[in-house]
């Protein structure tokens, strides 16, 4: 127990050191790469709760991210900006402006509430049906963002959001996300989630409520999606509904599947691998010279190579890089594998 606390403290200190030290040690470019990796880790971890651990393969996660981004964006515009950018905003929204943290929390709570409302009918579905239904939710969010132009400026760019997102903020939220999900996934509730995923009938037979379990996981995932959306909005400063659509959905799912669906460390590893690889390929595709050989620029090649690597990984490691295991450095006996050994699962 004490060893675990010490490890936790060391990890936290390390995160804090990187978060506060990096901007003065590294170039802005590397800080941004770190920030985007951490941000994507929040998105993919919150996605793994429903898609990986509960077996609800949701395609609507980006809908929550978009809703969170727009809501926090509207809340944190200054009153003067609201008057010029959103002149038709209803009066209950246009007289105040929230700081970064409250706006983020409100966005998270709003998306969690949205998930409960949407999930109540949808979480009764299983398999392909729930995927299609959650995709419907994503489409609805997109259409609402485009048409509720009094709130969102429609398909036009939503701009002027203060650029508050810094490395300490994102690392802080990432630590909270990791901690909450870790406690949740490896708790009695976590076992209920996996039971519902692995055998719905057996789980119901021993008295586990399928709907409650799935709905809770879905709503907690949506909370962190909303929080991540707010961080993303305050990172970009300007965005439009098309930012939060299928391209982003596919990107997040690819990271999750690649890392391993049933593993928190797998989710993080998937994000790190895909982000670093696409950055690397993006630099290589501009063309380079090694000795006498000059490779010309081939823009667009990075997407092709990335897709090819995904195919290879799915052929040779269909469960993703980590599968159901956790990277524990031998300190925690909490991986799914050890549970199987102990006869728990």
């Amino acid at each position, binding site marked *: 127990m004490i060893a675990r606390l010490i490890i936790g403290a060391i990890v936290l200190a390390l995160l804090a050191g990187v978060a506060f030290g990096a901007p003065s040690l590294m170039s802005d*470019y590397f800080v941004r790469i770190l920030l985007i990796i951490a941000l994507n880790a929040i998105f993919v971890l919150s996605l793994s709760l429903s898609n990986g651990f509960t077996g609800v393969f949701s395609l609507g996660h980006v809908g929550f991210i978009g809703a969170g981004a727009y809501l926090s964006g509207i809340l944190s515009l200054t009153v003067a900006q609201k008057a010029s950018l959103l002149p038709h905003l209803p009066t209950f929204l246009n007289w105040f402006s929230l700081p970064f943290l409250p706006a983020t929390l409100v966005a998270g709570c709003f998306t969690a509430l949205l998930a409960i409302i949407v999930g109540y009918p949808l979480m009764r579905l299983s398999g392909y049906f729930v995927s299609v239904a959650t995709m419907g939710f994503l489409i609805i969010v997109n259409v609402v963002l485009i048409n509720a132009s009094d709130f969102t400026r*429609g398909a*036009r760019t939503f701009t002027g959001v203060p650029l508050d997102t810094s490395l300490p903020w994102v690392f802080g939220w990432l630590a909270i996300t990791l901690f909450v999900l870790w406690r949740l996934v490896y708790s009695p509730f976590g076992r209920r989630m996996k039971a519902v995923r692995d055998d719905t009938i057996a789980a119901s037979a021993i008295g586990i409520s399928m709907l409650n379990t799935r709905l809770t996981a879905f709503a907690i995932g949506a909370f962190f999606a909303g929080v991540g959306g707010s961080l993303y909005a305050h990172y970009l*400063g300007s965005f439009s509904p098309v930012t939060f659509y299928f391209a982003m959905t596919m990107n997040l799912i690819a990271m999750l599947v690649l890392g391993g669906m049933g593993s928190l460390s797998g989710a993080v590893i998937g994000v790190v691998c895909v982000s*670093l690889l696409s950055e690397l390929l993006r630099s290589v595709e501009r063309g380079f010279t090694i000795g006498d050989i000059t490779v010309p620029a081939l823009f667009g090649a990075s997407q092709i190579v990335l897709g090819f690597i995904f195919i290879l990984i799915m052929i040779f490691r269909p469960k993703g890089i980590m599968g159901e295991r956790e990277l524990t450095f031998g300190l925690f006996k909490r991986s799914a594998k050890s549970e199987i050994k102990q006869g728990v699962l």
Partner: protein
Amino acid sequence: MTNINRRTALGLGLSTAFVLATTGRSLAADPIKIGFPANLTGNAASLDGPMLNGGKLAAAEINAAGGVLGRPIELVVYDTKSDATVISTVASQLIDSDKVVAIVAFSDSDSVLAIGPQIQKAQIPLITPGATSPKLPSQLGNEVFLACFGDNVQAAVGAEFALNNLKAKTGYLLTDLGTEYTTLLSDYFVKTYEHGGGKLLGKDTYKTGDKTFTAQIAKIKALPEAPGFIYSASLVDEVTLILKQLRQAGINIPVVGGDGYDSPLLLEVGGKAAEGAYFTTHSYIGAGATPKVQKFMDAYKAANKVDPENAFAALGYDAVKLMADSIKRAGAVDSAKIRDAIAATSGLAAVTGTITYRPGIAVPDKSVSVIGVKDGKLFLASEAAPSFVPEP
């Protein structure tokens, strides 16, 4: 054990390659580096692709003539994939790793809005070849310049063309509410048209992606008095459909719009229905163009094996020429001096018109070409500067 070794080796290899690829390219300090991020893939690719080709052509010509201040210029090109996240990473690469002194970037306002805060913070001047929102400099700051006219100018020319050349004292307005560009264009049009004594008989809207316009057309047919023309603030995909459905309904009045129509698709998809369409754009590129434009077209074709796809090719060319000219006038490779030199540009003869910035205004006064469609071909209907320009 082998498993872990393999993984470690893979990780090490990847990270080494990553570091090499991102840091190992600043060997020759000799050329003057100008950042050129462009959306070469994704939904803005059909505009930014020709723009980059035009920019490269200009750089090649400048270097062939001895460069600027005795040094060649180098365009540092990145594909930003029409993605705001990639744009912000590329911006920091350009500023921190490549140490560019100035940036030429993008044909759409969204991308300029995404890169704006970073270049403003780093105090590096940026010229956008093709983003026409005249609000950009006031939204972002004093480092942002447009090489093209603002939407207020082209809308004003469109309105005055309707009043003076088409003799249309009454009009009807259709607006696409789906994009910033069409919404602004429509506002500016109304201001000039009504200022010039024109009367709008009605207004209607639709959204980008709509396919049927029967409701809007029925309203036009039901008007007690037929309007003299229709101003349609649209993108090319929708305006071809609008034209087809208008002509099918027997409405043959002229349709006027902005540079959103400037694509080969207008004639390819619009076909016969495109007769009587007019649009304002940066330059007339086609058969019978002015000698200056013809010279650019020939050089572009020689370099790229195709004719210039649209006016954005010429704008990319002009923006790089403008940047090189400003560096020359600044007399030093220094971002602050280059910024001041850009702001002081006066009477620079470019392919798309003469570029002059009035003091404190980062949108140039340029003449606007009005292009019409007749017998399935484009022709230059008018070239003018507006007599009244609405405030941005």
